[in-house]
């Protein structure tokens, strides 16, 4: 059913206000009355009619079917006793679990930030004109993307076996400013951060490089022609535009990292997942405790997704002709139109 017919019908059923078509025959001269019987001669004034939005019945059917499906899944989750929601609730905010969660967040934040900073530097090196910088950056990505993260972790943790002491000094001389036992320097935490950061840097370098490459060359040229300095060209002109390409993949990476931190269980580092494992090995409540971890991961991912939405929106300024409404604005508009209609009808 098209919207046009709907409007037409509603017009006919209502008493027509002011600008009614004049009786046939009083048309402009020379038009020849007989052929124009159906069409009104004077342009009709439609301004006093209410606009009825197009109806989408199939959209409503689809919505109902999906809602039913969601309801069924929710029902089974809620009523199947084997999920043991009581146990889930009991452990969800337990001190040890929360501590594990904090460790997970700490690892994610530190290695995420450091990883992207290092990745940014690597990306700039890769795009520089110096062949040495290019090849160092390339080799870095090559090595860290080719080794399993697990192996990297264990290597960092066991660095003390390979190199007993770490020192800072002038290469090829005996001058040492600073020397320390490797095992004291590389704690579990340090090994975890080191492994996650370097691995993350290798991947984010490529993401950032891709983003920078996606910006039109003409932008740099125009900026150079205006005498804008190189650093400012990168930060003010290229990066904000590159962000549009970088952000979706970057958030993918960060969300991957949140769960990826669980790999540090090999170092017996008590982040969220390791903590949960320790608990269910003791209590044998495997499924509910896995649910506890999962629910926390879902919470983190959801929060990140909200951030992603607004950050992406910020960087799409000027890239789309008009910014789309935020969910909040959409909801407000929905209520404004759908709630206001009955009121207007009553008045």
């Amino acid at each position: 059913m098209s919207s046009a017919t709907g409007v037409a019908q509603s017009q006919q059923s209502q008493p027509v206000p002011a600008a009614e078509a004049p009786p046939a025959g009083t048309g402009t001269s020379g038009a020849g009355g007989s052929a124009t019987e159906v069409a009104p001669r004077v342009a009709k004034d439609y301004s006093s009619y209410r606009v009825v939005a197009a109806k989408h019945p199939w959209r409503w059917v689809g919505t109902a079917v999906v809602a039913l499906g969601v309801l069924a899944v929710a029902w089974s989750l809620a009523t199947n006793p084997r999920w043991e929601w009581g146990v889930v609730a009991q452990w969800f905010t337990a001190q040890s679990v929360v501590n594990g969660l904090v460790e997970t967040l700490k690892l994610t934040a530190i290695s995420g930030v450091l990883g992207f900073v290092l990745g940014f530097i690597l990306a700039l090196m890769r795009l520089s004109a110096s062949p040495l910088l290019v090849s160092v950056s390339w080799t870095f990505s090559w090595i860290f993307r080719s080794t399993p993260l697990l192996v990297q972790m264990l290597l960092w943790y066991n660095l003390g076996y390979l190199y007993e002491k770490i020192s800072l000094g002038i290469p090829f001389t005996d001058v040492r400013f600073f020397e320390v036992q490797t095992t004291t320097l590389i704690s579990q935490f340090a090994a975890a951060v080191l492994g996650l950061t370097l691995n993350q840097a290798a991947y984010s370098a490529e993401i950032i490089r891709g983003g920078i490459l996606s910006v039109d060359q003409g932008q740099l040229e125009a900026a150079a022609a205006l005498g804008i300095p190189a650093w400012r060209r990168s930060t003010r002109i290229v990066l904000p535009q590159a962000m549009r390409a970088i952000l979706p993949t970057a958030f993918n990476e960060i969300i991957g990292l949140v769960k990826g931190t669980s790999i540090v269980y090999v170092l017996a580092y008590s982040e969220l997942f390791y903590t949960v494992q320790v608990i269910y090995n003791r209590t044998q409540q495997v499924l509910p405790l896995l649910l506890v971890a999962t629910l926390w991961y879902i919470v983190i991912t959801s929060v990140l997704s909200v951030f992603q939405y607004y950050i992406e929106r910020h960087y799409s300024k000027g890239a789309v002709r008009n910014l789309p409404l935020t969910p909040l604005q959409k909801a407000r508009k929905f209520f404004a139109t759908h709630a206001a209609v009955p009121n207007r009808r009553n008045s």
Partner: protein
Amino acid sequence: MTDTLTAPTATRGLVEITGVRKSFGPTEVLKGVSLTVEPGGVAVIVGPSGSGKSTLLRTINHLEKVDGGHITIDGQLVGYKLRGDRLHELREKEILKQRTDIGMVFQNFNLFPHLTALENVAEAPVVAQGRSKEDARRRGLELLDRVGLKDRAGAYPRQLSGGQQQRVAIARALALDPKILLFDEPTSALDPELVNEVLDVIRELATSGTTLIIVTHEMGFARDVADTVVFMDQGQIVEQGTPKEIFSNPQEPRTRSFFSKVLEPAFNI
């Protein structure tokens, strides 16, 4: 070499191009081009596609390095410094400073899409000339007013028509108070009905004392606005002169055959 001269204020924007050569790999794109544009003069460069017009423009603000010959602006070498008997390439910072004297308007506008019209115009004066933000903003609004877009100052480029975008680009180039403005086919990406709004702005500039060097295919406009028309073909300047000389009475056969293709008969009186 004339780089020791400090130009008197009267000769603001004298462009001297001497024997400029430029190759991309094996193909020589500019084969010894020499051209002088007087301060406040308007030179229009015409010629077939691929003849090197864009490349010549880009060498003037050192977006493209020359392989031979040199270019001076008010007696100052572009991109190089004479020390003893050697030409030293300028450092990035000095080149950027030179470029603030040379505005450029591109065929496809190259506005910064994530900045508003006003931000586009006010960016360079702040970071390249160290003006205050407030000052740059005020001047930016003046310039947008001058190109007839004051009420669109807050719009992003994608919210503007092509003609409006190009006018913002012209305002952006003017914001640095350049001695010279380079236009590379400023209207060829525009719908025919938008061409004139841009040409009108350039016409107005032609009387303002800024030196203009314009590459265009708009022959009627060239005839109106140019002091000198330059015809380029295959990396060389074939012929140059007043619009009258070049359009009505071209001497070279290559010029004649080019104009017989591009000029509509009604125009060729």
